[in-house]
């Protein structure tokens, strides 16, 4: 078991490197250069375009460019963005908080809603509550989120004027006190977080439900009920503790996704997050930013997969490498 984990960890770096090589290749395979978009303008002569390409180092062979990038990465230098020449690290740190806030907040919201829903449903599988909740969460799961976002924006933002249409802060926010600023930001994020949560409720609540159903079949639950304990104590004090365990694992495994932003949500709600950073970088062929985000994402994903496999291996003794350990 530990041998398996050690081997996986050792492979982490080489595989990450492989991912970067593949990504570098894909990036350059996609036609177009960073200077194309901005410079298709009769005022920009061919010589000017060529000169700019040279200044970005784009005229050197790919191996040389990759080697240069690798050398910088080893020194934790992610280079400068082609779009505005700012250090890539700076751009990432700027965008990370918004994405983290949205992801963590919606995760919490999902947790707070999914757990009670799952528990109640498990208490009476097939009952009315269970069936209606199932329909509701599946509705959320099946809705195109940007469509829902647009409709909510039009209704709550334009029709009712209860919520702001888009953006992260009110325009006069820098004159507010700190608490007021936080509340203002929360008000702006209500819709994005709400929709993100609604759309992802199904996964966690269904898992909670099936986990609880499994727990509720156990003997000690029958004992507790036979002892005459009230149902809600049975559910929430005895069963929940054990039903929650696998859930924690799932939450832990979604850690790498925390830094990923949804480009659709960020575009619709005008939120400057990681999703838009990546999308804009790809469209503008901003190679340094693309490579930085791909590398970080790859490392985190593989870390996440490693933790996932370790957790499953611990949970299910049948799944150990080689069948027998």
């Amino acid at each position, binding site marked *: 078991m530990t041998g398996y984990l050690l081997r996986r960890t050792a492979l982490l770096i080489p595989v990450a490197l492989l991912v970067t090589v593949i990504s570098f290749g894909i990036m350059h395979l996609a036609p177009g250069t960073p200077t194309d978009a901005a410079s298709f*303008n009769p005022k920009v002569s061919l010589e*000017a375009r060529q*000169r700019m390409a040279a200044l970005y180092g784009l005229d050197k062979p790919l191996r040389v460019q990759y080697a240069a990038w690798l050398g910088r990465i080893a020194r934790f230098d992610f280079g*400068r963005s082609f779009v505005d020449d700012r250090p890539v690290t700076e751009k990432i740190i700027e965008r990370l908080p918004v994405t983290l806030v949205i992801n963590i907040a919606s995760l919490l919201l999902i947790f707070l809603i999914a757990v009670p829903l799952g528990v109640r449903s498990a208490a009476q599988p097939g009952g009315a509550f269970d069936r209606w909740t199932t329909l509701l969460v599946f509705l959320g799961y099946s809705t195109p989120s940007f469509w829902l976002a647009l409709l909510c*924006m039009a209704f709550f933002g334009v029709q009712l004027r209860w919520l702001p249409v888009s953006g*992260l802060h009110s325009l006069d926010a820098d004159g507010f006190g700190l608490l007021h600023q936080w509340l203002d930001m929360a008000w702006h994020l209500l819709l994005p977080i709400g929709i993100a949560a609604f759309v992802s409720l199904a996964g966690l609540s269904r898992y909670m439900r099936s986990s609880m159903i499994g727990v509720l079949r156990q003997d000690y639950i029958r004992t507790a009920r036979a002892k005459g304990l009230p149902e809600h104590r049975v559910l929430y004090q005895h069963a929940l503790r054990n039903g929650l365990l696998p859930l924690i694992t799932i939450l832990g495994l979604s850690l790498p996704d925390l830094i990923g932003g949804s480009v659709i949500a960020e575009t619709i709600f*005008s939120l*400057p997050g990681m999703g838009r950073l990546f999308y804009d970088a790809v469209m503008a062929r901003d190679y340094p930013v693309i490579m930085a985000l791909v590398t970080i994402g790859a490392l985190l994903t593989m870390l996440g997969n490693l933790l996932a496999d370790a957790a499953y291996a611990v949970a299910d003794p049948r799944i150990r490498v080689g069948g027998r350990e």
Partner: protein
Amino acid sequence: MRVWRWVLVVALTVLPVVPAFPQSEPVTGDALVVGSIGDASRLLPILASDSASGDIVGLLFNGLVKYSPQLEIVGDLAESWTVEQGGLVLTFTLRPNLRWHDGAPVTAEDVRFTYQKLIDPAVRTPFSSSYELVESVEVPDSRTIRIRYKEPFSPALESWMMGIIPKHLLEGQDLNTTPFLRHPVGHGPYRFVRWKTGELIELAANPDYFEHRPWIDRYLYRIIPDQATMFLELLTAGVDLSGLTPLQYQRQTDTAFVQRAYQKFRYPSFGFTYMGYNLADPRFSDVRVRRAINQAIDKQAILDGVLFGLGAVATGPYPKESWAYDPSVVPAAYDPPAAKALLAEAGWEDRDNDGWLDKDGQPFRFTLLTNQGNEVRRQVCELVQEQLKTLGIDVKIRVLEWATFVHEFIDKRRFEAVLLGWSLSRDPDLYDLFHSSKTKEGEYNFVGYNSPEVDALLIQGRQTFDQAQRQTIYHQIHRRLAEDQPYTFLYVADALPIISSRFRNVVSSPIGIGWNMIDWYAPSREQRYRRMSR
């Protein structure tokens, strides 16, 4: 009792007149919130290649000259200039007492510094080509700049609308990475306050601006990447000024609320949409084919259908408002039977009765390329496809991502026809688009147009400074292009800005509505945002 009667009479006489005194005295205060799809990237005029950077830079920096609302070149930072030796020498005289936002004086040295950086090979500026014909820039005194050219170059005057950058702050720095790009110091009507990346850029009125302090205290540039969201923000007054799509202008801004709260404007944009042919393709090298297609496309129907009529049919590369536009050029009539006859003359007939024209056994089929992200253009493609179908030509539409489009298809001439638009400067020089020497990979005469007559005219046009002479030359160019049809010129779209009605003094002109932005103001009672302290 009599006193009260007099009071009543006076009151009744005066009261009706009082509202008639409009609050027409401009007052300071308020903020103008502008919506933009993209964020700026570099706030330095010589590096600002995207439109968002250009918008901001235009408020922070001025050029030596600018366009008047009537599209004439007038002085901006320069109070006067002379053109000597047939255009070989341009001499500008700066206004006195011009100051940077940090108080330092704006001098001719700054102009020379700007030029040096424009042609500096280490600076990543895309705009160097307009300055390549400059031989030298001399600064005899702090207010005079003498520019010598290697040959006369009339578009040069327009090139000096480039924002002037501060030597005292930028000398010795690497312009590609200087922090100035994110904290600029200019001399224009607004000064820089802050930039929250991806969200907002804030500018504040410059109290020492040489014309006068702008009335509107603050300029807030909000980044809203989604068109649909932008419109919703407009409806909730989250944004005061933005551009409308033709659909929004025509159909979504008719409610009583919008009409009361907003003012809409329309004026022709400077540019045109066209279908360009690869003239190396044997089918399109025959001018009869191009003329036939021109007659088979109902441009008015396209204009009405896609743009709701908000524009004008184009007959050449100039909008009607340009002095280079020749009013004697008549647009080809929409005449499908005549088109069919012309194609038959060129050898294209439906000999096998399959609905498509053919020649030498090959049906007339081509792929029309356009770029992704432009709804209007795509709809135009679909209409062209349908109209040519009735003629018997099979058009396939292919939408490509922009960078791919430029790099793989246009630069390498791997296309049959493209549907694109040009956004042009107001100087009518089109050397880069139509001169036969500009056909290398990466250059803009990618259709491959080669006309010795037009070549000569293009060169003449850019070497003459005499306006009347230039007009004759460009009229001729317009006529030749209309006859030769290297492009099928489709239409010139209108720009459709919309602005909150609380702003007074917004006046439309051929150059748009922004020309007198410093004169706009909102009456105190209608202001939405808090005042600035200064």
